[in-house]
């Protein structure tokens, strides 16, 4: 609805206000009964509010023009709005099918590369996702005023900088930017899911819903459907990822009976559909990897050799030390911790990344080497509570084992 109104009136800010006003009007008006078509009702109310607004703007501009003609000589935009508004007078019936590609255009605009990443995320959730400012702020643990300010600034930039609500000529590039934002939102929801965050808005569901929209509107994009498959695979397992107390459970120890098989089946179908388009990309490769995990009946059934090879391919498509870190884990699982450590030790650029140290600690411990120092370093770098508890436990376990080993060695030397 917002996309459609923005399209008709060329003013995102005003359209957003009109939709909010219409919703508030609905709160009182609908107490005596909900209309047959709530969407059409809301659209009509919001549109009428916009037309009123345009008329007021035009009247005040006329006044300004009369008093200060030199400032308003080439300001004809208000008239353009009014024409767009009145041309719509006859059209009242609204349903989802008449949205066309406006929703996709709005998503692409929210993720425009001329906006910074945090703004893209905020706009996507607030305008395309339809969450309230309070909900988005809560999801990102920000003061609501900060979030509101960010959205206000972004809307102003969109208007003043001339950012169009059009399907861009470099669509593929722009879709890439849109998918990155959706995956970022998904990951925020995925990683923050823990006992102390139960009241946070479900960003996972929201990201999946928006990704579905993109897949529906861009059926030719294999990467969009690949991302949907990837999100679904993670989502299917997310319930088993933490205990009731919010503690992390490593993939190999997760209770696989808690995984959602229907969601995994849908992910499999989505991935298959994406891959039939023969245009591989990083999201599809990550989905194939997630699919290997999701479809393995036990942890021991996991084909780690294949996963290591997939991470190698992924690293070639999108070079990234984190991918190399994952490849090291897969190699460790396939060929033993020492083989994994050999890959880790060649890695640079992850010194400040807690999972690098956590992984190193885990592989060292499995190889029977001192690991407490790596867990300690990881602890210093993480901010996630569930991860912190997991690392503290591992540090304590390995420190005890190391003390015991040192005592044994000391005892042996003494003998």
């Amino acid at each position, binding site marked *: 609805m917002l996309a459609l109104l923005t399209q008709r009136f060329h003013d995102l800010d005003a359209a957003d206000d009109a939709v909010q006003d219409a919703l508030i009007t609905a709160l009182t008006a609908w107490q005596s009964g909900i209309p047959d078509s709530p969407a059409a009702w809301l659209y009509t109310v919001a549109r009428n509010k916009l037309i009123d607004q345009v008329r007021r703007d035009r009247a005040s501009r006329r006044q300004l023009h009369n008093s200060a003609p030199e400032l308003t000589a*080439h300001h004809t935009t208000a008239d353009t709005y009014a024409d767009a508004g009145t041309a719509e007078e006859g059209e009242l019936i609204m349903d989802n099918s008449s949205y066309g590609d406006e929703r996709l255009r709005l998503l692409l605009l929210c993720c*425009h590369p*001329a906006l910074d990443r945090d703004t893209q995320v905020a706009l996507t959730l607030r305008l395309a996702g339809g969450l309230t400012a309070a909900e988005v702020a809560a999801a990102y643990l920000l003061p609501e005023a900060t979030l509101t300010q960010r959205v206000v600034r972004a809307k102003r930039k969109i208007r*003043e*900088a*001339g*950012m*169009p609500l*059009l399907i*861009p*000529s*470099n669509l593929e590039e722009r879709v890439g930017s849109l998918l990155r934002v959706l995956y970022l939102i998904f990951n925020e929801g995925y990683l923050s899911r823990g006992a102390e965050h139960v009241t946070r808005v479900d960003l996972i569901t929201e990201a999946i819903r928006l990704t579905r929209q993109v897949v529906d509107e861009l059926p030719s994009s294999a990467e969009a459907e690949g991302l949907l498959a990837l999100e679904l695979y993670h989502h299917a397992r997310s319930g088993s990822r933490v205990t009731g107390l919010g503690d992390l459970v490593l993939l190999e120890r997760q209770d696989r009976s808690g995984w959602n098989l229907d969601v995994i089946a849908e992910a499999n179908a989505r991935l298959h559909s994406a891959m039939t388009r023969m245009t591989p990309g990083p999201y599809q490769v990550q989905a194939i990897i997630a699919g290997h995990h999701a479809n393995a009946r036990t942890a021991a059934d996991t084909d780690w050799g294949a996963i290591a090879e997939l991470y190698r391919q992924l690293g070639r498509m999108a070079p990234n030390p984190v991918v190399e870190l994952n490849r090291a884990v897969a190699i460790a699982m396939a060929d033993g911790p020492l083989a994994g450590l050999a890959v880790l030790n060649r890695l640079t650029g992850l010194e400040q990344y807690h999972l690098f140290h956590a992984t190193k600690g885990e592989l060292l411990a499995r190889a029977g080497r001192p690991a407490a120092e790596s867990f300690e370093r990881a602890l210093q770098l993480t901010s996630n509570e569930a991860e912190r508890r997991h690392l503290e436990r591992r540090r304590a376990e390995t420190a005890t084992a190391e003390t015991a080993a040192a005592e044994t060695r000391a005892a042996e030397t003494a003998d």
Partner: protein
Amino acid sequence: MEFMILIHGDESSPRLAPGDPGFDEFMGSWMAYNQMLIEGGHWVSGANLAPTSSATTLRCSPGQTPEIVDGPFAETKEQFGGYYLISAENLDEAIALASKLPMDSGSLEIRPVAFRPDAA
């Protein structure tokens, strides 16, 4: 809409002078760019500035005659070196046009024109 493309570059990087090998190609690429703007109906104006070593800065304060300072206002790695004022449908078109500038380093700031007294 009108947009200004502000061109920032590192002045200390070597510049080609007339007669240097590659100079004609270098100038040719800029002339071709200008021609592209003109033919596409995007050209409004543009200029290449003399280096900041020739700059004079006036520092203004209320009720005072500006203080005259030799040189650029701030020492930065990249200096403002020239601009294009172009006409484009929207930011996307302005970005696409700016991306075609024959630059291999430096940065381009794109700003919409809010008001220009001599605009038609």
